[in-house]
């Protein structure tokens, strides 16, 4: 008898699962999502090690004949200057991951800030922000990207800024809509009647309820940025003076006719794996975190 009482008590004390708890169980049961997470983790680790100079530091060294094909000595083959394609791919991963990370941070920050302010305050501020992003999104993003990189000059910093400044509109719309839905909920009125300031309500109480949208958008933006880097490199507006997947793929347009496929292959496959992982992860996150989809399959 005592045992039964005890077990009922523990049941009572056990909290019901939160959104994040549910998401965690769902994600950890999803083998695809787990694999994708591990892949993203490995790429981040490689990028970090390369950034700190632990690996791939000597990518620019000439280690063999020009265009040596992949072999036991030269794992992924060599490029025109006899440089290791493997090390270039690793350096490319560093660039790709840093571009993905920095630009997603910028665009998620802008999108969340503008969307939250617009949705919460409403009125003239809202009208202004909606007008601004509607105008902004009427310009095709490729034109925007080219204009910003033209103005800032070539180089990795302008790629960060250009991609970061172009990717925030869809998140801004979503956050604005969510904040509008939340701001008349009881919990917001409760905080307000307890004397919570607008900023406190917005950032401490409403924003935690829309974090999942930010996370989903972050993973989406990350892979868009990686893919855009390639296009910018082709347009001659991308990374200069260091290897990136974009410059490697761009170089290969003259190499394929000579039978040199390993630069294109390495960069494409390296990119395919990480972008695919981000896509799968993004979908899994959306399924796990978006309450509107819960129960539907």
């Amino acid at each position: 008898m005592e045992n039964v009482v005890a077990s009922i008590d523990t049941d009572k004390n056990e909290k019901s699962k939160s959104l994040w708890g549910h998401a965690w169980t769902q994600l950890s049961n999803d083998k695809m999502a787990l694999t994708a997470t591990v892949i993203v983790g490995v790429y981040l680790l490689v990028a970090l090690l390369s950034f700190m100079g632990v690996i791939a530091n000597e990518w620019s060294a000439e280690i063999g004949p020009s265009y040596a094909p992949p072999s036991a000595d030269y794992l992924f083959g060599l490029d025109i200057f006899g440089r290791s394609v493997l090390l270039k791919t690793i350096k490319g991963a560093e660039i790709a991951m840093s571009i993905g990370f920095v630009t997603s941070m910028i665009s998620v920050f802008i999108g969340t800030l503008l969307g939250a302010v617009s949705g919460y305050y409403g009125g003239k501020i809202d009208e202004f922000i909606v007008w601004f992003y509607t105008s902004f999104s009427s310009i095709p993003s490729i034109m925007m990207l080219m204009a910003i990189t033209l103005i800032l000059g070539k180089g990795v910093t302008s790629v960060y800024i250009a991609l970061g400044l172009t990717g925030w509109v869809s998140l801004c719309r979503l956050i604005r809509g969510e904040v509008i839905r939340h701001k008349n909920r009881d919990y917001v009125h409760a905080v307000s009647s307890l004397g919570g300031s607008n900023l406190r309500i917005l950032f401490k109480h409403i924003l935690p309820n829309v974090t999942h949208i930010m996370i989903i958008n972050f993973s989406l933006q990350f892979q868009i940025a990686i893919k855009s880097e390639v296009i910018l490199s082709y347009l001659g507006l991308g990374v200069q003076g260091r290897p990136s997947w974009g410059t490697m793929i761009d170089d290969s347009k003259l190499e394929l006719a000579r039978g040199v496929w390993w630069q294109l292959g390495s960069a494409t496959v390296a990119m395919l794996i990480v972008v695919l992982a981000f896509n799968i992860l993004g979908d899994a996150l959306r399924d796990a975190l978006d309450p509107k989809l819960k129960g539907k399959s």
Partner: protein
Amino acid sequence: MNIYAYIVRRLLYVIPILLGVCAIIFILFNVVSPDPTLIMLGKHASVEQMESLRRELGLDRPYYVQYLDIVKSAFTFDFGRSWSTKQEISSMIANGAVPSLTLTLPAFFLATLVSISISLLVAFFRGKFFDKFIVFVCVAFMSISSLAYIIFGQWFFAYKLGWFEISGYEHGFPYFIPYVILPIIIWIILSVGPDVRFYRTVMLDEVYQDYVRTAKSKGLSDKIILFKHVLKNAMIPIITYVVIQIPFLILGTLLLESFFSIPGLGSMTLNAVNSLDFPVIKAVTVLSAVAYIIFSVITDVLYTIVDPRVRLN
């Protein structure tokens, strides 16, 4: 709300957006951009040279005049002359639009047809292995760089197999056909991934509706339900999705046109970017924004006609 009142209100809202677009373009190219005369004349230009060039390009006029110029060009499509070729920009655009459309129109039409067919098939087999497999393939296709498709496609089909031409575009029907087949195929491959995913979601949203259950309980076959009922209702989001892409067809495609040396608007834009031809870049930006705005009005209006519930909001 009355449909005409809605259309008028929607059209009136175009004006502030257009002014906003012009303001963004103005700020980018006339205010914060590096001095174009410095770029054109190089580092060793004298102050007098720069001054006279500024006057020639109209950059010495007050900001508000320069802004009004951009606004005016959005209505008159008179964009002035190119800095590098000295040609009338509006005629450059008119000349470039045709080659662009010979590529983008058939490509877009075929890609949409293929994607809708695949998504119907996928919706038919929803939840089964086939469905999951196709979705995975779509995502995998989307994860490969578009540049890689183009480079590989050119090398394999044009260089190795020798099936297609990759340069030397000829004007006029039917001479252009051999030059656009390969880019069209690549376009289809590029758009099938995202399109099928979108159309599949649209179809699946409909498949779980009550009317489908009713149709099923009446004893209708899956095929009839899918083609007669689901497809019809799914047309609303499909039309929206299709119409909003039309302005981008006029603009052409930067990558495909430049790789296959098709003298369309995409190539023109790319040349302008490479030679820092600001008026041409500005013209293309204004034009694409105007086209986008017009087509988003059309989508909204179509939407209210097809689905009267929207008008209430």
